[in-house]
């Protein structure tokens, strides 16, 4: 039987202890062990960005990281984005400007866009498009996503 590894990790501010197998991805443990199913699996090869999370301040694909590597790290997922009923401005504007259709790519895009706005509060359209190049959406054609992000950036600068 494969040895199990004891992993202690903080997810959205809460500490979790899990036993995991060495080949399990962080994505699998988030979804299947911790039942935080907001983070989606699209490709499982790092191409689509649906599984985007933040680990120690760094935007990553959770499918490209082993759960054992998250030991001692701080993980941020979509479940931590809204504060109770209070949606993040990006979430509000994705609803307002129809920045989603089927919604599978949306958690990853919201997490990725939030990281962009933390680093660059006033991005150009081109900068938004390049930053989100690793987040594939097969429904919207991207324009509404980009608009939602740009509107949010403007709003957050104003507040």
């Amino acid at each position, binding site marked *: 039987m*494969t040895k199990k590894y004891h992993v202690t990790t903080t997810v959205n501010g809460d500490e979790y202890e899990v036993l995991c197998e060495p080949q399990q*991805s962080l994505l699998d443990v988030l979804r299947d062990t911790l039942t935080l199913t907001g983070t989606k699996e699209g490709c499982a090869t790092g191409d689509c960005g649906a599984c985007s999370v933040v680990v120690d301040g*760094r*935007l990553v*694909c959770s499918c*490209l990281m*082993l759960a054992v590597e998250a030991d001692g790290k701080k993980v941020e997922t979509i479940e931590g984005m809204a504060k109770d009923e209070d949606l993040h401005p990006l979430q509000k504007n994705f609803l307002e400007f129809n920045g989603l259709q089927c919604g599978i790519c949306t958690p990853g895009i919201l997490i*990725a866009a939030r990281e962009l706005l933390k680093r660059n509060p006033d991005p150009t359209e081109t900068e938004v498009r*390049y930053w989100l*190049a690793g987040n594939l959406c097969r429904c919207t054609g991207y324009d509404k996503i980009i608009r939602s992000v740009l509107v949010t950036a403007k709003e957050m600068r104003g507040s």
Partner: protein
Amino acid sequence: MADLRYEAPETLNAAVALLAGASGMTRVLAGGTDVIVQMETDLIEPELLVDIKKIPEVRQIAAENGGWRVGAAVTGMELVEHAAFCKAWPGVIDGVKLIGSIQVKGRATMGGNLCNASPAADSVPALVAAGATARIVGPKGTRDVAVETIPTGPGKTSLAKGEFIASFFFPKRPAHSGDAYLRFTPRTEMDIAVVGVGINLTLDGSGTCTAARVALGAVAPTVLLVNDAAKALIGTKVDAAALDKLATAASAACRPIDDKRGTKEYRIKVTGVIAKRAAQIALERARKS
């Protein structure tokens, strides 16, 4: 699948001992953006993963003897956000910036890009053009080798059992030096090079090229360092005639395959075009440095 063991040693020696002492397939885990996908898709079934990221030496970016030492497990985003390194080696950064998405670069490393040994790896022609050396640690001690000696074919390296790359060294460059990496892909992002060219050159006070290195990616089983292409630039002002000679020499060195990304003929032709453009970017940077 055999049982997988994961270890995260905190010293280079401990990592070497684990890798050298294993009986089955081992993999070094740095960013994992290739290794984890290869495991997930059953291309490899290692018995031991040695995560090197807790070893301080492989995670540092530090000035050394007027040049730079960069740990093999420094991530792409850490390098891209390091202002002083970006200023010193903009061509290396050109290559690193093209390794996957922001998310992928949040994990992916130059050490992994090199050791995955894809002929199309974007940072490798830039590393070779830079004249970077790799510091290899292993059971027989430490050795420094030129980056171009590491890949020996697709997916294959010259590293012996128990060895791995701890860091890269980028030597001090003379004034008026510049480097650039340019690739051709149908898409601007999230694509794999059809052709990639890294060029590093130095000018004298009159603007004549005194030194050059030209490296080609995705046109042979390994990245190629092409001396004839460098010779086409050295002694010239990198003018139109020199650029034409560079293109001819670069195209002549190509030994590409036909695949879905491009035919042999196409790759050979495009290599010359991309080499010229990369040289012009390197030239502009050298003039400004």
